[in-house]
């Protein structure tokens, strides 16, 4: 075995990793308005963690993620190749691991962590809430791309082009999570993957029984070179054993072995688990109490300003089905879809909400529903989407310059694509002027008026979740709505701009 060939093969692994990372980023970039979005959720479809946890929490099999069975079968045959070759977060961690300088190999390890987090996720899902978004590596990576890297990228692109800058009200928390995952590499390489990642946990459970495993053959001199190069601490050099649950098939040991006795071959022996009863009970208990605790922290009713994207299913189900990946926020052309911080409670963190002051929901766009990987936002036809009531606009007359200062404003009327705002003549202190009124029967709560209100600060017309419609199934188009919208004789007085004789 020559050194040159070793490098070549290890390089090949890097190439594959970079390929999948690039593919992930490519799909991310392609998640934009107007592009045919067929494959943009490709990676999520192969994520068994979504299949298991979200299906349990939502009490229905998530058919979009059924393809992940392929990954499970693949893992049963080949081991955790996903972690070593495909996972974009794993690749990113690898990149940073190769940059980070560790002073010493710190023997800090908590390999059972990933099983316990997995157990926690499953128990909490059984109780009725999904905490998947905190731990799924694909979700974390997609969300980090959206909330952290996308605004940075658009800033620099915007310097040279006319593209608008993406802005998100929450980036620091995303940065903290991402930075934490990356910098844990200071302790040991692939710290996240070996100790915390619940997706790795699922794959580890299976790869213990995988057909092919890296195995140490006879002739081992226990020199320990393989254990030194192993990024996941899978090699127990004293017992000359490689724990297939930890091994991510990275090939380093194979090429490092001076005796050439580490080999990838069919091997049916299994190493035992080492979860203690105490650990198990802790994770189980955490899963039990997390859900009621999180539910006690919901604030949404306080403000009434939690406006979900059009076609979002009813709230408790929405929270369970939404994986908080941020695709809808990435694709929203007005940038109006923003991450919740605590507006929807603790497990509503990073779920989308319409912040209409930043951007309203365009009438001719249903992109958020198109890209949602789990259909937490239903993929409604464009026509039907325009009938969804997300909320209702409410005019604050004390701040409105048409009401309070007799200005010829009426920009809200101008902005409304549904003619839900009427400008009607109203005399105040002797001044007769058109002033805006909202017809709450027609208003969809799209927020285009709130976005364009010309006063400084908070808009004088704001969307509240009054009349909000959320349907799991069935059409949003009703006869009454169609009739109201078709009505041509909307009350409209002669504009103030005319001198009427």
């Amino acid at each position, binding site marked *: 075995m020559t050194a040159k060939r070793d490098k070549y093969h290890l390089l090949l692994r890097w190439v594959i990793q970079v390929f999948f990372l690039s593919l992930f980023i490519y799909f991310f970039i392609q998640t934009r308005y107007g592009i045919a979005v067929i494959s943009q959720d490709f990676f999520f479809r192969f994520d068994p963690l979504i299949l298991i946890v979200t299906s349990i929490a939502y009490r229905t099999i998530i058919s979009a993620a059924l393809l992940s069975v392929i990954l499970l079968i693949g893992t049963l045959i080949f081991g955790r190749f996903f972690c070593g070759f495909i996972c974009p977060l794993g690749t990113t961690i690898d990149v940073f691991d190769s940059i980070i300088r560790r002073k010493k190999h710190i023997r800090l390890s908590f390999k059972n962590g990933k099983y316990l987090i997995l157990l926690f996720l499953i128990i909490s899902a059984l109780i009725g809430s999904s905490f998947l978004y905190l731990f799924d590596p694909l979700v974390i990576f997609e969300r980090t791309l959206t909330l952290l890297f996308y605004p940075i990228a658009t800033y620099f692109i915007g310097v040279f082009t*006319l593209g608008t800058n993406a802005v998100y009200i929450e980036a620091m928390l995303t940065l903290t999570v991402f930075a934490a995952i990356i910098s844990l590499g200071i302790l040991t390489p692939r710290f996240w993957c070996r100790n915390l990642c619940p997706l790795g946990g699922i794959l580890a459970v299976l790869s213990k029984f995988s057909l092919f495993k890296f195995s140490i053959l006879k002739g081992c001199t226990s020199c320990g070179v393989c254990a030194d190069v192993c990024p996941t601490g899978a090699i127990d050099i004293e017992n000359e054993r490689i724990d297939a649950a930890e091994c991510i098939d990275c090939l380093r040991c194979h090429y490092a072995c001076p005796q050439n006795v580490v080999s990838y071959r069919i091997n049916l022996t299994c190493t035992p688990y080492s979860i203690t009863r105490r650990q198990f009970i802790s994770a189980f208990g955490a899963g039990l109490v997390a859900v009621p605790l999180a539910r006690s922290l919901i604030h949404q009713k306080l403000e009434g300003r939690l406006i979900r994207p059009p076609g979002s299913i009813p709230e408790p189900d929405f929270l369970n089905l939404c994986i908080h990946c941020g695709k809808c926020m990435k694709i929203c052309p007005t940038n109006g879809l923003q991450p919740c911080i605590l507006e929807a409670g603790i497990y509503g963190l990073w779920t989308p909400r319409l912040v209409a002051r930043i951007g309203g929901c365009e009438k001719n766009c249903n992109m958020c529903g198109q890209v949602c990987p789990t259909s937490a936002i239903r993929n409604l036809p464009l026509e039907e989407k325009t009938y969804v009531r997300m909320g209702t606009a409410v005019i604050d007359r004390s701040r409105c310059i048409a009401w309070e200062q007799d200005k010829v404003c009426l920009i809200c009327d101008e902005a409304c694509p549904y003619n839900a705002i009427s400008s009607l003549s109203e005399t105040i202190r002797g001044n007769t002027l058109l002033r805006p009124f909202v017809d709450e029967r027609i208003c969809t709560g799209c927020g285009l008026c709130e976005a364009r209100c*010309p006063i400084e600060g908070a808009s004088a017309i704001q969307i509240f979740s009054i009349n909000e419609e959320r349907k799991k199934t069935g059409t949003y188009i009703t006869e009454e709505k169609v009739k109201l919208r078709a009505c041509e004789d909307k009350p409209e007085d002669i504009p103030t701009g005319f001198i009427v004789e």
Partner: protein
Amino acid sequence: MNRITRREFLKLSTGAFVVTLLPKPIFGSELKVSNGPLIGVARGEKSKLVEAAVNAIGGIEKFINKGDRVCIKPNISFAANVDCGATTSPEVVKQVVQLCLDAGASNVIILDHTIQDTTLCIEKSRIEEAIVDDKKVRLLPLTKERQFAEVEVPQGKELNSIKVAKAIQTADKLINLPTAKSHSATGVSLGMKNLMGLIWNRGYLHRVNLHRAIAELATVIKTDLTIVDATRALTSGGPGGPGKTVTLSTVIAGSDIVAVDSYTVGTTQWYNKSFLGTNVKYLVAASDMALGEINTDRMTIKKVEV
């Protein structure tokens, strides 16, 4: 005593007679009319309207020189279907672009600062159909503050200064290409109102006296030619629609922006009522500032059917 001879008398009286035979245009009424702005109105077949209307006022060569860099400002501010009438129809924009190119314009920029999302506005207005020549014609969405530069408004009472698109400040010619539509605040939105799509902070105008501010805006943004797309008019529910759309099959052209707007007001009913240009507050304000002719009686209107 100077007596007039018979011969002299005959000479003088013959001369006086000949003078009365001279064609009228040298004197009197026709001369007075040609002081008023010229308006070209074409009705009929959509694909010929622009050329006919522009020819009626002297042809495109009168306005565009060879090598000119021309900016065209259609109204594509709303993501509404073209049929609605909230945006300038792409066929009309295309004809204007073609005319400019025929007149030898070196390049043509179609620009607007859209109200709704730019991507959707471009898609719905089908404005890209007007790009007849990839090299010479380009679409310039005004999306960034850096595309605008502050301009003083010397005649301004409502506006001291305003950020105007740099593109039109560097261009040789500006063709204003509005669609005829109603407007909930100003009554109608035509040529002068369309200029608000060339400034950065359009909301500010609503916070001051809007009618006067629109007139003041026209003092700093000088248009060389205004062509109103009245192939159809959104006569209520404007400016974004939906509302009542009537087919007029008309294009109105002229270099006097106030006159063109004022004439257009009278071509159809708005909000089911008849109005004249003198009923529109911002046109009255513009007329008071001597920006153009508001009275249709004092315009030369050339109507052509195609």
